[in-house]
């Protein structure tokens, strides 16, 4: 196996990880600030992808599609926060799991009702189509490279927002002591709606970006949701830094595992059995990773005490 292939697979793992971070960041923010488990986060990802596909199909512009994804997901997020989520902050996790589980059902079937049962079309914009030559003779899809860049920019922006802005101060204060910031006169309701809509917009953005190279269909959010949960649990729930590290770990494990585990087994097994066993094991790899991290550090890599 050549070094070029390995380098390319590492890039693939990074790209996957970065997109996962967009999902995980919102999830972990919402948990960190409001203490809420949101199973419906995957639905917001789906909403973003569908908005992008619908608008891109109507206008022919991918950029407008992205704007629509951000706006649509943020609006959907704000709406469910105002109508449903708001009533769940002081409930136990059980009620939150259940209510957001109900939201998944409503979103999935609602989307199918509006858009029909067939996958929608959303393609990479022509300007970003095709491969690009990187140093050392690596040919890499330009769009995936763009995803890495966009993801890193958004991540940097998020860190800046939290470290340097007034709203970031409120978010950090909210993570530490919810009663206190209310007492200091911050409009806590507005802060919560903002954080939720921000998380939703990030998920919607991820959905639209990834939707261009995947299938825009009902139910696309759930597999990503579970991966995003694995990510934030590994990183430590509530920690943006943890989400980034966790996302990269999951992305690399998933990508490299599926390529190298079968190769590894071929060293001491018959090729057919090795591909089978390797494929089986690699599909469980990230869950094994998560279990190991939690056994070693029960609150994740960067988690505060639970």
């Amino acid at each position, binding site marked *: 196996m050549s070094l070029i292939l390995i380098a390319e697979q590492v890039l693939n*793992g990074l790209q996957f990880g970065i997109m996962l971070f967009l999902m995980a960041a919102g999830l972990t923010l919402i948990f960190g600030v409001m203490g809420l488990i949101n199973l419906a986060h995957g639905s917001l990802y789906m909403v973003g992808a569908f908005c992008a596909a619908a608008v891109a199909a109507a206008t022919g512009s991918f950029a407008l599609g992205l704007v629509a994804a951000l706006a649509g997901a943020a609006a959907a997020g704000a709406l469910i926060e105002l109508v449903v989520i708001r009533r769940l902050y002081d409930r136990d996790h059980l009620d939150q799991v259940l209510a957001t589980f109900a939201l998944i059902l409503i979103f999935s079937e609602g989307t199918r009702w509006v858009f029909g049962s067939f996958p929608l079309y959303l393609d990479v914009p022509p300007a970003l189509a095709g491969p690009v030559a990187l140093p050392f003779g690596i040919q890499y899809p330009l769009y995936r490279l763009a995803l890495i860049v966009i993801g890193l920019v958004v991540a940097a922006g998020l860190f800046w927002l939290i470290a340097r802005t007034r709203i970031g101060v409120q978010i950090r204060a909210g993570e530490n002591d919810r009663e206190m910031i209310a007492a200091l006169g911050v409009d806590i309701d507005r802060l919560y709606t903002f954080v939720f809509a921000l998380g939703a917009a990030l998920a919607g953005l991820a959905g639209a970006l990834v939707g261009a190279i995947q*299938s*825009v269909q*009902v139910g*696309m959010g759930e597999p990503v949701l579970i991966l995003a949960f694995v990510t934030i649990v590994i990183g430590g729930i509530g920690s943006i830094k943890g989400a980034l590290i966790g996302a990269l770990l999951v992305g690399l494990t998933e990508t490299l595992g599926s390529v190298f585990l079968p190769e590894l087994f071929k060293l001491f097994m018959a090729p057919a059995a090795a591909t089978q066993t390797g494929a089986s094991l690699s*599909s469980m790899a990230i869950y094994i990773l998560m279990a190991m991290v939690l056994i070693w550090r029960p609150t994740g890599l960067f988690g505060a005490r639970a």
Partner: protein
Amino acid sequence: MNFKTLAKTVAMGGAVCAALATAAAAEVKVGMITTLSGGGAGLGIDVRDGFLLALEQSGRDDIEVVIEDDQRKPDVAVQLADKLVQSEKVDVLTGIIWSNLAMAVVPSVTAQGKFYLSPNAGPSQLAGRGCHPNYFNVAWQNDAYHEAAGAYAAADGSKKAFVLAPNYPAGQDAITGFKRGFGGEIAAEVYTKLGQTDYAAEIAQIRASDADILYYFLPGGMGISFMKQYSGSGAEVPVIGPAFSFDQGILGAIGDAALGVKNTAHWSKDLDVPGNAEFVASFSEKYGRLPSIYAAQGFDTALLLVSATAAADVTDADAFRAALKAADFQSVRGAFKFADNHHPIQTIYMREVIKEGDVVTNRLVGPAAEDYADPYGVDCKM
């Protein structure tokens, strides 16, 4: 007695019976279990719409259809089958899309003496040792598309194939089927996670390999994701696949990325056989979309049912079975007959993805395997 004479005898007998039966035609009750909600709903909806269209055109009002949604869950499908058999007391069941659901439902309903007409799934178990006199597959045995594609690739001069499928039984069968037809060298055999959406890692492997043909079986959303990513990767290994990844329902979502891809199917909308153009026109008119292979399969399933009920009374199981076996209907795929294991003997065609105006669709290239019969029939004892 060879097949043809048997078929003729039965058909003649059937015609006599039909004349008698129309006078006192018993109501036929059909139970359709198919996927109408959730991710895979597109396929079930197509089968249902095709089936109902044929029934409507036949003008038969003595066939009652009860439609149920299995949500693609095997346990729900089993429960619905119990309901249709026990409480609706249907005579014939049909509709199931997925092999694993068919495996859960078919053995038990046929054991209870009901007829089952498969409009889509054709697992090898039901074609071989697990075959049953009351089970008829109107679509294809699962291997058909794959084996035909392998044969076509070999005949087309490909020497070394890269094969890719999800790591589950249908995926393993697909690769086995392709290899059986291909017979050439395999560059690599890669199994992916079921439901996987990102194929960057696999695509890098394909580019690094020296294969001269890529065969992949990734049904539904998996295939959409793969093809979009593959076409943007700069990889140049030509692609061949089964129609499941390039059918009308999903071509719209893949778009131009699929253009030029060859895929195998038993039917194509431009196939020049009697009735096909009318089917395509009436389906498009009624539902506002082009028919898919699933719609064609649903349509054929209903035609078979209508032909058999016209020839024999469903309460007379032996006569009805013979009427089904005779397959006395004009399939939209052209020539059609049942092998002894009640699976089709039919030509599998090669199609190519093209653009007609703004619509991405398939065009017929030519036969990939003529009079294909699956290899499992030898194990079928009935």
